């Protein structure tokens, strides 16, 4: 422990905290201490127990064993409301905004300003405006419904909401995973200011760069156990990674093959002047066999819509899509899957990717009935074989494929989604930020998998908010800005500087569209 203030008790102290879900030990014998005026990062691979740890502190789950002390006093919360009352505020990994309520209602949800016993709408609006302004989100209207906001705006609203509770201990559980670069800067500045004001901050992220920049203390978790706590800079990155996954990691990204020679063969997927609503503007793009094409840019510039459009989810898309040179009209997911062998890994795995209450096995076969039930009757043997193969291929950590998929950790859930689609044998794979909230180890597995698929001839279109990932993993990156492709980067031109420059539309091509504040999507 690097703590030196021995006189006063530490702000937060966990001793021997453990939590089991049925047979699963999510946490075991955790001892942890957090001081005021520090940003304390928690690291660990998927399923390491980070979220569970946070939930025990925030009163969402009751620990099965152990004790939590706040400023030396043992506490036992019956729900997040009680924790909030003690100044423990958490921004959870799964957003806790109510989508149908207004931004102001959300921000002031639990303790709205009141006058004469009734909620004071004017005061509430003022508070919301002030909080939003303090994190640089003046573009969010306090009366807008949250469901009209983009994911990155929602995360900012979530942060504003947490700040409104006047926290003493602020916990951010992957709260910045979808933030745009610019927001991240604002949030960094904010967090540092809060630290200087004497708050205790717990910060969970899978982005090593963020932690390097922000944290002063780092704790690493593995398999529900606290491995070590140390000050930033006392360990190398490789050492940290080894602590997290318990083994050596060699190269971060698999090597890229040399660019294929220009061929007369038509591209696998070819978009021409694709437009939709106000969010996609005349997009032209090719994906060749065996190529991984990235989609870059700030969040909410049309990347998500482009993937949905290709999968036939959007109505009123104009322009042409060709697959292997043949025009491929976009009729819907069924058509995309069965006729064109497309696959989409959606944005939100909990609601769009998985049937959470169903078993892992059922989820794996969900897209492959034409394979395992050729005549409409499920072939049990084929089903079992397909499931086993999928679990093996993606190394999904399951004790029993008949358990509900909701019992898996985030990373393993994502693997289930990917495995489900690989089972269909897609020729084009569309990925919407597949590594969001996934640990380095799993990320690496996914990168390698993508590379292997490409080598087998699959075309991959890959949207990510992580620049490093785009650079390391993609052969070529199309950067979107306000629905336009503003740059296509490849080879040496594919670097962080160029990515950021074109994402902000500052490139030599100049402003394609008038500067447009991304607010309502």
């Amino acid at each position, binding site marked *: 422990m690097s703590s030196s203030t021995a006189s006063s008790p530490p702000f937060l102290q966990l001793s021997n905290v453990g939590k089991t879900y049925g047979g699963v030990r999510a946490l075991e014998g955790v001892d942890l201490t957090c001081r005021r005026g520090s940003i304390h990062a928690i690291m660990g691979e998927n399923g390491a127990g980070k979220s569970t740890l946070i939930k025990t502190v925030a009163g969402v789950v009751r620990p099965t064993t152990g004790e939590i002390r706040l400023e030396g006093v043992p506490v036992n919360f019956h729900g997040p409301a009680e924790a909030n009352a003690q100044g423990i505020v958490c921004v959870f990994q799964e957003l806790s905004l109510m989508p149908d309520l207004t931004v102001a209602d959300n921000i002031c949800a639990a303790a709205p300003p009141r006058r004469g016993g009734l909620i004071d709408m004017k005061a509430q609006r003022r508070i919301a405006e002030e909080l939003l302004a303090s994190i640089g989100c003046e573009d969010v209207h306090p009366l807008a419904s949250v469901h009209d906001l983009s994911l990155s705006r929602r995360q900012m609203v979530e942060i504003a909401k947490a700040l409104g509770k006047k926290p003493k201990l602020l916990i951010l559980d992957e709260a910045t995973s979808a933030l745009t670069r610019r927001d991240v800067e604002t949030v960094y500045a904010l967090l540092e200011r809060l630290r200087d004001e004497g708050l205790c901050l717990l910060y969970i992220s899978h982005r090593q760069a963020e932690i390097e920049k922000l944290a002063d203390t780092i704790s690493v978790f593995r398999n529900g156990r606290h491995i070590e706590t140390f000050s930033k800079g006392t360990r190398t990155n490789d050492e940290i990674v080894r602590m997290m996954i318990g083994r050596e990691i060699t190269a971060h990204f698999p090597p890229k093959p040399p660019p294929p020679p220009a061929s007369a063969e038509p591209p696998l997927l070819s978009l021409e002047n694709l437009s939709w609503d106000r969010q996609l503007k005349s997009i032209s793009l090719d994906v060749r066999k065996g190529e991984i094409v990235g989609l870059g840019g700030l969040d909410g510039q049309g990347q998500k819509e482009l993937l949905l459009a290709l999968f036939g989810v959007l109505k009123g898309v104009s322009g042409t899509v060709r697959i292997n040179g043949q025009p491929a009209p976009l009729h819907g*997911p069924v058509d995309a899957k069965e006729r064109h062998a497309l696959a989409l890994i959606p944005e939100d795995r909990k609601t769009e990717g*998985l049937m959470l209450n169903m078993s892992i096995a*059922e989820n794996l076969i969900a897209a492959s009935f034409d394979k395992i039930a050729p005549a409409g009757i499920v072939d049990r043997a084929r089903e079992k074989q397909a499931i086993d193969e999928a679990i093996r291929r993606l190394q999904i950590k399951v004790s029993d494929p008949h358990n509900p998929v909701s019992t898996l950790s985030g990373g393993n859930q994502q693997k289930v989604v990917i495995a489900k689609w690989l089972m269909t044998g897609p020729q084009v794979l569309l990925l919407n930020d597949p590594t969001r909230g996934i640990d380095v180890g799993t990320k690496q597995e996914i990168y390698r998998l993508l590379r292997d698929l490409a080598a087998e001839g699959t075309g991959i279109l890959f949207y990510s908010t992580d620049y490093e990932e785009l650079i390391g993993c993609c052969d070529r990156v199309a950067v979107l800005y306000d629905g336009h492709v503003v740059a296509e980067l490849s080879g040496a031109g594919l670097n962080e500087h160029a990515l950021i420059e074109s994402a902000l539309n500052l490139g030599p091509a100049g402003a394609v569209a008038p500067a447009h504040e991304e607010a309502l999507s």
Partner: protein
Amino acid sequence: MAFPKAGRLGPDNFPIVVALCCIVLILAGGSVYTVSTNGTFSLLSPSYLLQQLQIGAFLGIVASGAMLVILLGHIDLSVPWTLTAGAMMATAVGGPLAIPAGIATGLAVGLVNGLGVTLLRVPSMIFTLGVNAVMGGLMVAYTGGYAPQTDATPLMRFLASGRILDIPANALLWLVVAIAISSMLRFTAFGRQIYMIGNSEAASYLSGLRIRRIAIATFTLAGGLSGLAGVLLAGYSAKAYQGMGEPYLLPAIAAVVIGGTSILGGRGRYAGTIVGVLLMVLLNSVLSIMQMPEAGRQIIYGVVITAMLLIYSREGARR
């Protein structure tokens, strides 16, 4: 999880066992009554039990349709007048085409339900309510304007109240329906996909399932089962009449839920529905035999359902 491994008391089997115990309790309670009044154990006689099976078969067939729709995450409130319309059309057409006409009527109403729910995206609870009102209106207008024939054909009568080897013919028909539906739910892509859509429509859609077609087919099938029940009921009563469907809506839903199917969809076993139906029918019959006044009957009805569901949910919480 929809398909627990055989041999263990999974969360989907627990309600079935509890409901079976409840059935035993009902029969025991009823027998205490018959012994004290008549000195007989008539509730345990094969003839009484077979008769309950015969009466239960109608509810069983309606509940089969209700279960499919509930598994899909919807509800069908159009059962009363769909059933009646099936019966009235069957008797109006008469002759060898009577039964197909009745079932076809049900299928048609179910198709309309399915189209409304999937294409118009009106919540099923409200759309089927509207369809029920429209069907009621149609039948009133039809009866008033055309004075239709309402006598059941001999085949309908035989299917509803005949016996084969002393077993009620309609119970055998229910058995056929039961086998067909439970194997459909277990072994066919269609059945599995009903569960998936019931669990998450968005995920099913993005998995490339034909969610509309499956939903329409499910509603249509449920409508057809209501039509079939109408045909049989007309055979049982030897005629079709307006109010015949009313007593089947809520008991069917109750039977499905008592059988352990989640009212939210995506989870449940057909065996549960069978047990739920038998429970409802026996409870009704025993209360009628005991000459229980309506007030007490309603209270017992409510308390039994609540108590059983509380037991299920406690069990669910324990896991």
